[in-house]
């Protein structure tokens, strides 16, 4: 996944069958032990929390997933902004792929957050500012994916979806700042505080930072695959359209009207 739409790498015999390549395989090889270490640190090595007990281990899954979701949303919005300038398929597909991964990650955030909320707050769900803003982000992402499924030319589809993607950033700011702007059941920021002094330290801090790094690596790997699938889908759709147009032309030819006066 490199270069811009106008240059493009030429076909080669080494093109793999599927969305994998040497780069993705190297990333996957790095990811396997990295994920194993993440789960070892999160579930075994790190200590239980004084207040939350063993449940704090959900923090090492919940927060990195949220961060990946934020990064994916920012990338989708950024790629959409660039699309308005460049108007190329590449930026449109980067935005679409990133937004779909963000949808999965926000859904995962809501699920693990609900499970985390039950033992810490006593409820799976409450209409708290942070939770409600996150649910709104989920709806916005689903709306983005729905807009992309409306039949339209690539340019119209790109423009519509890029406009929706622009709304991701203000929504994320509301999600992130909701615990500061309103009285919230959700805890205040643990790491990204104005005082620059995180509320977490030692192995717990290291585990969280490590989980961020692995989460971003996983996102990069998945994004390359998802981008390629989106590109392949566009190619298959274009071939299908070409075949349909060709078929219609042939039908017209057989009926005789397409040739007009050529026979006279």
């Amino acid at each position: 996944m490199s270069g811009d739409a106008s240059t493009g790498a030429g076909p080669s015999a080494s093109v793999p069958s599927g969305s994998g390549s040497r780069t993705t395989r190297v990333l996957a090889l790095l990811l396997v032990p990295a994920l194993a270490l993440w789960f070892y640190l999160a579930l075994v090595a790190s200590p239980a929390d004084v207040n939350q007990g063993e449940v704090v281990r959900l923090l090492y899954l919940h927060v990195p997933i949220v961060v990946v979701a934020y990064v994916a949303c920012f990338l989708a919005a950024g790629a959409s902004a660039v699309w308005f300038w460049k108007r190329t398929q590449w930026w449109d597909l980067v935005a679409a792929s990133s937004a779909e991964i963000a949808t999965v990650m926000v859904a995962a955030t809501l699920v693990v957050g609900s499970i985390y909320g039950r033992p810490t707050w006593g409820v799976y769900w409450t209409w708290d500012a942070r939770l409600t803003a996150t649910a709104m982000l989920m709806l916005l992402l689903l709306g983005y994916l729905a807009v992309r499924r409306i039949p339209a030319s690539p340019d119209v589809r790109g423009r519509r979806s890029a406009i929706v993607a622009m709304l991701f950033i203000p929504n994320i700011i509301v999600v992130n700042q909701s615990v500061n702007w309103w009285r919230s059941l959700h805890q205040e920021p643990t790491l990204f505080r104005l005082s620059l002094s995180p509320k977490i330290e030692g192995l717990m801090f290291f585990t969280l930072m490590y989980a961020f790094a692995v989460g971003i690596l996983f996102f990069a790997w998945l994004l390359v695959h998802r981008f390629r699938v989106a590109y392949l889908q566009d190619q298959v759709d274009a071939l299908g359209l070409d075949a349909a147009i060709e078929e219609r032309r042939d039908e017209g030819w057989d009926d005789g009207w397409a040739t007009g006066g050529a026979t006279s």
Partner: protein
Amino acid sequence: MSPILATLFAQIGDSSSQWGYVAAGYGIVLLGIAVYVLFVLRKGRQLSRQLDPEDRRWMS
């Protein structure tokens, strides 16, 4: 039951209950993400079979 044993059992029960939430959180989320990843990889294989190599850019 002695108070010490009662406290111990309560702690064990509380801990196992907490581990239940941890297992549910990791299990559901990781399974969901794994299903999505498999869907993406499978879709990539299916689509690439429908295209000639010269129609596949940005693939390596």
